[in-house]
Every structure is written in structure tokens, then in C-alpha cells.
């Protein structure tokens, strides 16, 4: 305004309200912050799921894959076999069905193999050497993370090929060998040396402790459990051995009727493999049909393929005869009073029944072969005793995966390998550094109520993703069909991106006080103008994904 105009009767305005400090009204101030998504919190490898799904949404596929691979070198593998607790915790599950995260991972993982994308090279080389025993998911994950930091990593694997349970346990119809080989090859290209056919004996430990700066034991759980009521008979196989042979394309004659004992994932793999070999299969499990430890989709798959599952039953006696094995069975209930992890069957009187089997395959669990190590390292109930940082009593010796945990999920093993690598790196740098500086967040994940569903029009998960059962049982072709690019995009679109700002500007647009400003120089992208913000919380409410929180202020 011109100066002369300011000399006016008091009815004309002379200035603007932006000199007023309305910020003094508030009792709380909004803070833009990245909060953990429930999927991230549930992910065994601490995957940044909202980050890479948003990159998929933006069709930045290679960046998406790099974000995925940052925590897990096997996206194509876990995209197929992960038990995906992420989906179980997905906030969208409370709305219109969880995002099909696992299938998205599958899509991105396959795209990387197809396009031949490489993992990033270490930024610098380090001289320190680490020996990893076992080229299964835990061992290779640990090797990967250490290699990324520039350590020299050697992996010993007693089997002819690397992969561990991925190679010898999981059937091809779930995980094609080429996929696994592709992802392992990429690790070797990164400079990880894998020596296959190299069995490591416990007595060698002291020697290798001298040669290497650290050792990571990831020998897996390769010893099948047995049941006393079953005789030693060629008609009684253990599941691990059966799967290993099937995975090496051995010819196995099973006969017409196969009974699989066990209710876990291995039991399902065994049953479905046997079904593909032409047998009629019955599964007997202690747990009732609703509570089998196997993953739901595995059980569903088995049922679709014509496998009979008898839950809440056990074999009491086995009669061997020319006709086959006569199994005297009985229905049981599990004692709810039993300690956690212990199955205590209680027989239901008068519920006896019998089965005839040409072949019985036991899939009731497996243990690591730790007995030969117990003079060197503490072992408890077949597991290496480790500290929370995966270290053992021996300095520089770490253990993880199935040999140290009863979790027995591929992704858990990968996650443990990753976390062990973090500890090994810290150990190797004298406790100061780590593989990455990521701190495991103690913050609670974003709850569903913090999601503003107006911004997410209902769009059903709409994903089956398997071939027809009749087709499936004919051979070992892969069951999961995977996403088309359109399906992948549609699915990525469904991600709420809980707690991760995607710069949608809603906080900016809904502020009645213009107290939110965009600032590209800030990591959180926005700045709150302290002078004007009245603390109404509209930006918090209108953030579709809970990436703004209100912080109480005291004056």
C-alpha cells in the first residue's frame, strides 16, 4: 500500500493478518514422520514393503527390486514360498482384503531375473574374511549382507548344489529350480565364493577360526524326526529324504495308497509331491483340520488336488503285511493345558479306525544335526544356544537359521542371516559399525484407524493366482501363476503405504491456516509453520496413510 494511503481514518485496513501469531492457540503440533507399517513390522527380513510397492505403483520396477533386495537377496524365491505374515497384518485386510504383497514380490523378483538386473556392488572392499557354513537361506542371506559391506565371504555347502532347503526341500511345483539358481548366481556374481560338496566337520572349527575373522553356522535342520511305532521298513520313508530325492528327479515307486504323517508345511509338500507321482494320498495330523501348522494356501492346495486330510488323529500301531502297512489309528484331541510348543494328544475313546498304506511318509519335523557340535558350542534341545545378536560362546562364531531357531520359515532364516550379518559386522569393526545402521523400531505399527479410507476406493484383492488342480497334479509345473503387469500395478495401487509419506500434499491442501508448506529440502517433505499452526489436526486426519502425527505441546 502507498504510504499516503496509510494515513487514513481507522475504517480502512492498513496491513495483513500474517503478522499475527495464531500458533500460540495450539496445544498440540503435527509432526510428519515415517512410522512403521504393520507389514514391515511383521516381515521377518524387515522388508520396506510400503517403499517398494509405491515404486511398483510408479512403474519404477528396478528401483522397487533394489529396495526389495536390500533386505532379501531372494525376492523371486520368497515371492513364492514366504509364509507372508505381512499379508496377515496388512491394514487393508480390515478393509477389502490384504494387499497380495507376496504375489507382488513374486512379480518383481521374476522381472529382475528376466531383465538380468544385478545386485549393487560393495562400495568398498574389506580384507576381513568370513566363513559361512551352509548355503541355505540363512547362510546365503548372511553372506550377502556381509559381502555388500565389502567383506570377503566363503560359503561351504556339503550338498552338490547350493540352496539348502530351497534346493532339496521345497518341491519344484512351488519353487522352480531355475528361479533359485538365478538368484544364487547373482550372489556369486557379487563375489561370494560358494564351495559345494564341502562338508564341514566340527573338529575343523578351531582351524577355520584362525583362517577366518568370523564364522557363521547355518547348517539347517536336516535330520528327520521319527516315531517309535513305525518299523524300519522300506515302506516307511522320512519326508526330507523323500523330498530330496524327488527334487533330484529320482524315480520313486510309492504304490497306490500313501499315508503322510504330519501337519506342517513339509507334510503338505510331501503329500502333494506323492500325489504328483500318481498316488492317492491321505494326511494324518495330530492337529485338527482347522489348526494345521501348514500354511493355509498349502492346505487348500492339497485339498484341491484330491488329498484327504484327517486331522486330530494318530497312528497307534503298525501291522506290516504283504498287502501293505496296516495302520491302527485313533482320533485325538490336543490337551489345551500342555505347555506351549508341546503337543499332548488325548485319545478319544471308541474312535479307533484303520488305514492300509502302500507307503508311509513321516513328516513330523526335523532337527539340526548339532550333536557333533555340543563339545564346542552349547546346544539345547538340538538348537545352538545363541544370544540375541546371534553370537555363540565362542568369540567370532555366530549361528542362525534352522540350527538355532525353531521358527522354520524360509523368510525367518533369511531374516536371521541378515541380522546375524549385522552383528558379525559390528564384531569385525570392533563393535562400532554394523552392516547397516538400521535400528529396529520399537514404535507400534500404524493401526487401521489411522488410515483415511476415503482415499482408497474399495478394490477387492481379487487374486487367485494358481493353475487348476486337475492340471497341477499331472506334473511338477509351477502352481502359482504370478501377476501380469496390469495385475501387479492394480495390486500395488491397493497399498495404503501405511506410515510412509508419498508426498500426496493432502496435509498442505487441508490446512485452513496455510501452516503446512512444501519443502523439497526436507526428508519429510513438509514444514509446519510454528507461527500459524493452530493444532487442529486436519493434516493428521487427512493424511491417507498415518504419516503425520499430533504431538502434545506444553507451554
Amino acid at each position, binding site marked *: 500500500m502507498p504510504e499516503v494511503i496509510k494515513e487514513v481514518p*481507522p*475504517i*480502512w*485496513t*492498513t*496491513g*495483513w*493478518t*500474517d*503478522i*499475527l*501469531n*495464531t500458533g500460540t*492457540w*495450539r496445544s498440540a503440533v503435527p509432526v510428519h514422520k515415517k512410522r512403521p507399517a504393520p507389514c514391515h513390522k511383521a516381515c521377518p527380513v524387515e522388508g520396506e514393503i510400503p517403499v517398494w510397492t*509405491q515404486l511398483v505403483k*510408479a512403474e519404477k520396477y528396478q528401483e522397487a527390486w533394489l529396495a526389495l533386495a536390500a533386505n532379501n537377496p531372494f525376492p523371486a524365491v520368497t515371492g513364492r514360498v514366504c509364509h507372508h505374515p505381512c499379508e496377515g497384518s496388512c491394514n487393508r485386510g480390515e478393509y477389502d482384503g490384504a494387499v497380495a504383497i507376496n504375489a507382488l514380490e513374486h512379480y518383481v523378483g521374476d522381472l529382475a531375473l528376466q531383465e538380468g538386473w544385478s545386485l549393487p556392488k560393495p562400495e568398498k572392499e574389506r580384507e576381513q574374511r568370513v566363513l559361512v557354513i551352509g548355503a541355505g537361506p540363512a547362510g546365503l542371506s548372511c553372506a550377502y549382507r556381509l559381502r555388500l559391506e565389502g567383506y570377503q565371504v566363503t560359503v561351504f555347502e556339503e550338498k552338490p548344489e547350493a540352496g539348502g532347503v530351497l534346493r532339496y526341500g521345497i518341491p519344484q511345483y512351488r519353487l522352480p529350480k531355475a528361479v533359485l539358481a538365478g538368484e544364487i548366481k547373482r550372489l556369486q556374481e557379487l563375489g561370494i565364493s560358494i564351495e559345494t560338496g564341502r562338508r564341514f566337520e566340527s573338529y575343523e572349527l578351531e582351524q577355520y577360526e584362525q583362517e577366518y575373522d568370523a564364522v557363521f553356522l547355518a547348517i539347517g535342520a536336516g535330520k528327520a524326526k521319527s516315531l517309535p511305532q513305525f518299523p524300519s521298513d522300506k515302506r516307511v520313508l522320512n519326508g526330507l529324504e523323500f523330498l530330496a530325492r524327488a527334487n533330484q528327479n529320482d524315480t520313486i515307486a510309492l504304490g497306490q495308497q500313501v499315508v503322510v504323517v504330519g501337519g506342517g508345511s513339509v507334510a503338505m509338500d510331501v503329500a502333494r509331491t506323492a500325489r504328483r507321482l500318481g498316488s492317492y494320498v491321505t494326511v494324518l495330523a495330530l492337529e485338527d483340520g482347522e489348526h494345521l501348522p501348514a500354511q493355509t494356501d498349502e492346505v487348500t492346495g492339497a485339498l484341491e488336488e484330491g488329498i484327504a486330510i484327517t486331522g486330530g488323529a494318530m497312528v497307534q500301531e503298525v501291522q506290516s503285511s504283504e498287502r501293505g502297512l496296516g495302520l491302527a489309528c485313533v482320533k485325538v484331541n490336543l490337551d489345551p493345558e500342555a505347555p506351549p510348543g508341546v503337543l499332548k494328544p488325548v485319545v478319544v475313546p471308541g474312535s479307533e479306525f484303520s488305514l492300509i498304506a502302500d507307503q508311509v511318509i513321516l513328516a513330523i519335523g526335523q532337527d539340526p544335526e548339532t550333536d557333533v557340535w555340543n563339545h564346542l558350542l552349547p546346544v539345547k534341545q538340538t538348537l545352538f544356544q545363541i544370544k540375541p545378536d546371534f553370537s555363540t560362546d565362542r568369540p567370532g562364531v555366530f549361528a542362525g537359521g534352522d540350527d538355532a531357531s525353531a521358527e522354520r520359515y524360509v523368510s525367518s532364516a533369511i531374516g536371521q542371516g541378515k541380522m546375524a550379518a549385522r552383528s558379525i559386522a559390528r564384531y569385525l569393526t570392533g563393535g562400532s559399525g554394523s552392516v547397516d545402521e538400521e535400528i529396529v523400531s520399537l514404535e507400534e505399527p500404524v493401526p487401521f484407524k489411522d488410515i*483415511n479410507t*476415503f*482415499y482408497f476406493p474399495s478394490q477387492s484383492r481379487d487374486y487367485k493366482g494358481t493353475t487348476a488342480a486337475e492340471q497341477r497334479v499331472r506334473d511338477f509345473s509351477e502352481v502359482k501363476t504370478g501377476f501380469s503387469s496390469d495385475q501387479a500395478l492394480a495390486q500395488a495401487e491397493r497399498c495404503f503405504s501405511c506410515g510412509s509419506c*508419498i*508426498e*500426496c*500434499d*493432502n496435509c498442505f*491442501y*487441508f*490446512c*485452513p*491456516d*496455510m*501452516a503446512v508448506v512444501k519443502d523439497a529440502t526436507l526428508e519429510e517433505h513438509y514444514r509446519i*509453520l510454528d*507461527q*500459524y499452526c*493452530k*493444532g*487442529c*489436526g*486436519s493434516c*493428521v*486426519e*487427512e493424511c*491417507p496413510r498415518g504419516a503425520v502425527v499430533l504431538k502434545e505441546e506444553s507451554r
Partner: protein
Amino acid sequence: MGYYNIQEEKVFNSGHAACPGCSEALAIRYIINTLGPDSIGVVPPSCIAIISGPQPLSSMRMPVYQTTLEASAASATGISRALKAKGNDHTNVVVIAGDGGTYDIGFQSLSSAAERNEDFIYVCLDNEGYMNTGAQKSSSTPYLAYTTSTPSGKPTPKKNLAEIMAAHRIPYVATATTGYPEDLARKVARAKELKGTGLRFILVLTPCLDGWGVADHAGPKTSRLAVETGVFPLYEVEYGERYTLNFGSKGTPVQAYLSQQSRYKHLRPEQIQEIQSQVDANWERLRERFSVP
């Protein structure tokens, strides 16, 4: 990556005196920041007058004339005609008034300005009552809503002002609300574009946090529920004839909208059902007018 794309000119200032989270302030932002600084505002007594700023300061970087409660449309007429007389064909004249000043005491002058088809934009920020004086009923207050002058609930329905204005056959009538800021800004831009054709009227539902009894952060959410339940459909009418629906009922039960607000907390289930029936009937009646079914 956003949900909205709104171009703003910075006309509305921070530091204004609206309540925290005020829907009217948000509406004003998109009204005057869309019109731009080459505008003259007319504001009658209302919360908008408070928001305009305490003397000697203004929250709007454009001239604003505060008039008397019943005179907004006449005041805007005076400005519009004076500009015309001076040969100015570019400055926007805009009234921003509340529902009391529009539906009730200001209706006579508004209807006359519409009949004369005066060349200005009239925006009614409708918070369904005299909220600035402590929540008394206006003729915009909905059926059964509590106000301090209808403590047992208003016994008669809300006046349908958008339809009344459409019946004046003015160039443009639109309904908008703060939960759909881009739609609001687009309608203001459309009204601006139609300068020279006559009176353009925009009815903006602006939930009053205090008067309706909703949380400080719940303005936009409440506004969207009004749309999704069919209580307040968003549409445009050109020359009283051409109807276009922008956002209408999604079939969300009206209960979802009413239960957010303490002004409806006294309702009995059968009263909610009665409101639902009225909303359904109004929505059906309106639907018949849209050219595209």
C-alpha cells in the same frame, strides 16, 4: 502422486482468526485463492467477517467490504455496476456470506440480484445455522437438528436454496463442500470463467465444528459423509436447465453422517429412519434432473 491438483494464488493470509480446523477458512482459501487478487469481496456479518481480520488488518489480499447482514447482494451490485461504469471488465466481485445472511435475511436482495442477473459471484458458506451468534437455527438448518433456538430439534426441513437459485435461471449454480477441495476450486474457477454472463451462485457446505459438535480435525470428513450419504450432493446447473452431477450418494446410510455430530445425538431410531427416507426422496428427485442418468 497426489489426490488433488489445485492451482492457488496467494490471496488468503495466515494469521486469521478462524477456529482451529475451521471449514469456512478452508473454503475461503480455495475461493479467493482461485479468484486471485484482482477481486473485490463483500462479506456480511458472519464468521467470515471475523476471519476477514480484526481492524486494521485483513486476511485477504484484496479489497473486502463488510456490509450489513441483509445487504450482501445489493452491496455487490453496487461494486459490480461501479466497475462496469468505470469500464473495468476484469475485476471479480464476490460475496462470501453465511447461510443466515443468504437463506434468511439476505434472501430478498439475493433473489433480486439474481433476477437482474447482476455480474458477480455469490458464495454461501452454509453451516446450517447462525453459528457466529452461538448456533441458532436458520432456514438452512436441517430437519430435527439441535440448535440453541430449536433445543428439541428443528421441526421443519432445510430450505433447498440451490434449487431456488436454479429457478432464477442464472448462468451458474453449483454446490460444493470442503471435503472435495479440488471440486470446490474448479467450481470457483468455472464461475470466474463465466464473468460477464451474470450472477453465479455457489453453495458450499461448511461443517461448523463447534455448532455441529464434531472434532477439530473432522470438518472434511463430515463434509464427505454429507455427500456420500446423499444429504448434500455436489452438482452444477447452468441457466436453470443443464444439470451435471459431480459427486452423489454412494448409498452410505445417513446414520453414518448423523452419528458424527452431537447436534443429532438426541435422535431416536425412527427419527433417523425418517431422515433417511427424506434424504432418499430428495436424492431420487434430484437424480431425475441429471442429463446423464
